[in-house]
C-alpha cells in the first residue's frame, strides 16, 4: 500500500511540473506591468525601467523561469503586491478559511445529496426521483454569485436572520486561538461556544450557496451509482436471501455505490475550492480563492502562481486520499496496490 502510494506520488510529478510551467507562462503574458505598479503613480519611464531591473523582469523568460524555480525549491513563492505579504504566509493564513468553507459546504451538500440520491434511486421514477432531478439541476443552474447576492439580500438585509456578510467571524469577536485554522474546530478546542456559534453563523449562508452548487454532481452520482448497484446480481441475491431492505440498501448497495461517489466528492471538492472564489468575493470571505482572483485581476504574479501551485498540490494529495479511501472500502484495490 505504501509502495503504491509512493508510485502514485511519482506519477504526479509530471503534473506538477506541467502546472509550474503553464502557470509561469500564463502569468508572464498577463497584460499588467508590476514594475509600473511598484514605481508608483508619478514615476517616469526611467524609474520604471530601474524597478524592472531590480525585479529581474528585464531578463529573458528562461532566465526568469530558472530564478522562479530556484525560489520555489527553497519554498519562496514571492511577495504579493496587493497585500505586501509573502505569498507563503498569505496562503497559510487563508487556506484554512477556504478549506473550512469548502468542507462545510461539501458536508452540507453530502448530507442532503446522498440521502436524496439514494431515495431517488430506490424510488426510481417516483415523485421523489423527479424532485431530486429538478432540485439538483436547479442548484447547478444557479450562478453562485447570483445566489450569494440574493441570500445576502433576503436573509441579511431584508429578514435580518443571518449575520452580516463580513467574513469568518463577527467583527467584534476575536478568532479562537490558532490550532487547526478552522474556527469551528479551534473554538471547540478552546471550549468557546460563543465563538463557535458566531463562526458557525457566518458559515451558513456561504456554505449553503456552495452546497447548492455541489448538490447536483453528488446526488446524480449517488443515484446513478445506486441504480447500477441495485440492479446488480448480488443485490438480487441479498434480497432473495431475505435480508431486510434497510440492510440491503445501506450495507450492501450503498457501500458499493460509494466508490464512484467518493471519486466525485474528490472532484467536487477541488472544483469547489477553486470555484468558491466568487462566493468568497460576495461574502468577504478571507479565503485563498478571492485572494487569487484579486491578484489575477491586478496581474500580481506571485500570489497567482502560489495559489495555483497550492491547489495543484492539494489536488494531488486529495487524489491520494481518495486512493486510500478506495483501498479501505474496496478490498480489490488493496491487492492491486
Amino acid at each position, binding site marked *: 500500500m505504501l*509502495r503504491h502510494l*509512493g*508510485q502514485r506520488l*511519482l506519477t504526479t510529478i509530471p503534473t506538477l511540473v506541467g502546472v509550474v510551467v503553464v502557470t509561469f507562462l500564463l502569468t508572464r503574458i498577463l497584460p499588467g506591468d508590476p514594475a509600473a505598479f511598484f514605481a508608483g503613480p508619478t514615476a517616469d519611464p526611467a524609474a520604471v525601467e530601474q524597478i524592472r531591473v531590480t525585479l529581474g523582469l528585464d531578463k529573458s523568460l528562461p532566465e526568469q523561469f530558472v530564478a522562479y524555480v530556484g525560489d520555489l525549491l527553497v519554498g519562496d513563492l514571492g511577495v504579493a503586491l496587493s497585500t505586501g505579504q509573502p505569498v507563503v504566509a498569505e496562503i497559510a493564513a487563508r487556506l484554512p478559511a477556504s478549506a473550512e468553507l469548502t468542507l462545510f459546504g461539501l458536508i452540507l451538500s453530502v448530507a442532503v445529496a446522498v440521502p436524496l440520491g439514494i431515495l431517488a434511486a430506490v424510488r*426510481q*421514477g417516483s415523485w421523489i426521483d423527479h424532485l431530486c432531478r429538478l432540485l439538483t439541476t436547479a442548484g447547478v443552474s444557479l450562478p453562485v454569485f447570483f445566489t450569494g447576492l440574493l441570500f445576502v439580500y433576503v436573509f441579511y438585509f431584508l429578514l435580518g436572520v443571518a449575520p452580516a456578510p463580513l467574513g469568518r467571524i463577527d467583527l467584534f469577536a476575536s478568532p479562537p486561538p490558532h490550532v487547526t485554522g478552522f474556527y469551528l474546530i479551534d473554538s471547540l478546542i478552546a471550549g468557546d461556544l460563543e465563538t463557535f456559534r458566531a463562526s458557525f453563523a457566518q458559515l451558513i449562508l456561504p456554505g449553503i450557496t456552495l452546497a447548492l452548487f455541489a448538490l447536483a454532481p453528488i446526488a446524480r452520482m449517488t443515484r446513478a451509482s445506486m441504480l447500477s448497484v441495485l*440492479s*446488480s*446480481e*448480488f443485490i*438480487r*441475491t*441479498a*434480497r*432473495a*436471501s*431475505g*435480508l*431486510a*431492505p434497510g*440492510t440491503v440498501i445501506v*450495507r*450492501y448497495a450503498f*457501500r*458499493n455505490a460509494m466508490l464512484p461517489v467518493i471519486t466525485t466528492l474528490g472532484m467536487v471538492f477541488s472544483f469547489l475550492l477553486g470555484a468558491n472564489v466568487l462566493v468568497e468575493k460576495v461574502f468577504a470571505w478571507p479565503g485563498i480563492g478571492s485572494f487569487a482572483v484579486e491578484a489575477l485581476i491586478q496581474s500580481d504574479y506571485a500570489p497567482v502562481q502560489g495559489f495555483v501551485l497550492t491547489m495543484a498540490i492539494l489536488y494531488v494529495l486529495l487524489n491520494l486520499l481518495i486512493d486510500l479511501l478506495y483501498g479501505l*472500502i*474496496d*478490498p*480489490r484495490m488493496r*491487492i*492491486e496496490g
Partner: protein
Amino acid sequence: MSTLLDVKDLTVEFATRRGTVEAVRQVSLKIAKGETVGIVGESGSGKSVTSYAVMRILDRAGRIAAGTVTYGGVDLSAAGERQMREIRGREISMIFQNPRLALNPIRKVGVQLEDVLRTHALAGTDDARDKALDLLRQVRIARPEERYHAYPFELSGGMCQRIVFALALACRPQLLIADEPTTGLDVTTQKAVMDLVVDLTRERGMSTVLITHDLGLAATYCDRVVVMQKGEVVEEAASAAIFKAPAHPYTRKLMRATPRPGIGLRDLLPEAPAGTPTRPPAPAAGDVLLKVEGLVKTYPRQGGNPLARLLGRGGAAPEPFRAVDGLSLEIRRGESLGLVGESGCGKSTTSMMIMRLLDPTAGKITLGGDDIGAIPAKAFARTAHRRRVQMVFQDPTDSLNPRFTAERAIADPILRLEGGLDRDAVRARCESLATQVGLPLDLLDRFPHQLSGGQKARVGIARAIALRPDLVILDEPTAALDVSVQAVVLNLLDDLKAELGMSYLFVSHDLHVVRLLCDRVMVMRAGQVVEEGTAAAVLEDPQAAYTRELIAAIPHPPV
C-alpha cells in the same frame, strides 16, 4: 408426496415503452416435497421470470397480473413484503448465474453468510461465525477458516458458486431455486457444482427447481422437466420420458438440437429429410494450408516493483505468464480443426495470433507457404494476406457495429479490401452473400439491434466469407446462441465449408459441438496441447486423463 409449491395460472406482465407485455402466460406447475424439477427453455421463454415472480423479486416494471403462487398454504402473490422477507432465504432460497456477481464484492464471504444467518435469527453475535464456518464446510470448501476472510474476487468461479449455494442453504430452506447456476462455468466445474447441489438438497430433503437452457443438464439432474416456450409451459414430464418420447413439437425440436453423442450434424435440425447423408463427404484433405510451429505467447505478470526493477534492484522480474506454450498445428485445405479447452487454456490467444491480430512471442505461422507470422499485427491489415484469413466471432452482437446496417457490415470487407466496385455491385454482392447464409434480403437494411441473435450470426458469417478466405477461424461462434439456433448455424457453417472449400479452425469449449463440425480435434490445457486426433477417436477413446475428465463432465441424460 405433498405439494410444496403450487403455481396456478401465473401471468406476469411488464410495462414497456410499447405497452404491456406478458412475459409469462398462465403458467401452472407444482413442486412436490423433495422433488427436483427442471424448467427448460430458450431465451425469452419466461423461465426466469416465473421464478422471480415466485420469489416476488421482479423488477419494478413487472407485476403478477393473474394467478396464484401457493407455498405451504400461503398465497405468495398476495403476501406482504414483510411476510415475503420471512419466506425468502428462510423457506425458499435462490442461486443465480454468474456466482461472482451474485456476491457483494466488498464484503467478506463469511460476513455475508453471517448477515443471512442473523437476519433470520438463526445465529447470534457469538455463534454466527461458527455457523458460517460450518456452512462453508458443508459446501465442501477447503480451509474454511481462511476462506471466511476471503473476498469474492479472491475466489474462483466454482468456489463462488459454492458460497452462493451456502448462502442459499444457510437458513435450511425447503425449496431451492437455481437459476442457470452453472452457465458460464467450465464443464468440469459445472459437474462439481451440480453434484454438490443435488447431494446436499437430497440429503436435506429439499425441493429444487433448476432453471436452465440446457435440456441435457436438466434431464441429468432432475426428476421432472417442465419445458417453456414464449412464456407458456408446453410440456411437462419425467426426465427419462421426455428424452425418450417428447410429446410437444417444440420439445422435440429442442431435444434434437441438443448436441449429444452418436449423432450427425443434420440430426440437430428438426425433422431432417430422411436419407440425407449425415454430412457431405469431406473433400479429400488437400495440401497444408496453415502451419504453426512452436507458437509461444507470454505476458508479464502483474506485481513486482517496477521502480525497483528500473533501478536494477528488487530482484528479478517474476516469470512471465505463458498463455500459449509451444503450440504446433497444421490445417490442410478444406479441413476443419477443432481446438478445445476450458477457459484460460490459451485457445483464444492462439486463434488471435493465427488471425494476426496479436503478435506471437515466438514461433512461426505460415499460410500457404507465406510466413505471415513475421508480419506485425499492426501492418497485417494492409497486406494481401488479410483477406485470406477471416473470423467469425463469439458474440454476434458485440461483433457488429451498432451503427452499421447489416448490408454495411457485410460490405465492409468488400469495400476495404476489394474496392473499385460501384454501389449497385456492392449491393448485389451483399445480396448474394445474404442468400448464401440464409439471411432474408429485407433484413439487409436493418441495424443490429433490430436483428435476432441467429440473424446477427448470419451477418457475421456473411462478412467472414465475403472475400472467400482460405481459412476461417470460428471462435465459439454459437456460444451465445440458443441451441435451436446453434443447430442451424452449425449446419450452415458446414454447408458453406463444403461449398466454398474453406478450412476452419473451430475454437470451442464444447467437445460435442466440435465433434460435429470438425475432422480433427486438439485438446488444450494451460497453453499446451494434451491430445490430438480425429474427432471420433478423441471422443470415443480419449488417451489423456484430462480429456477423459472433460468428457465425463458432460451431462449424460438418462437416455
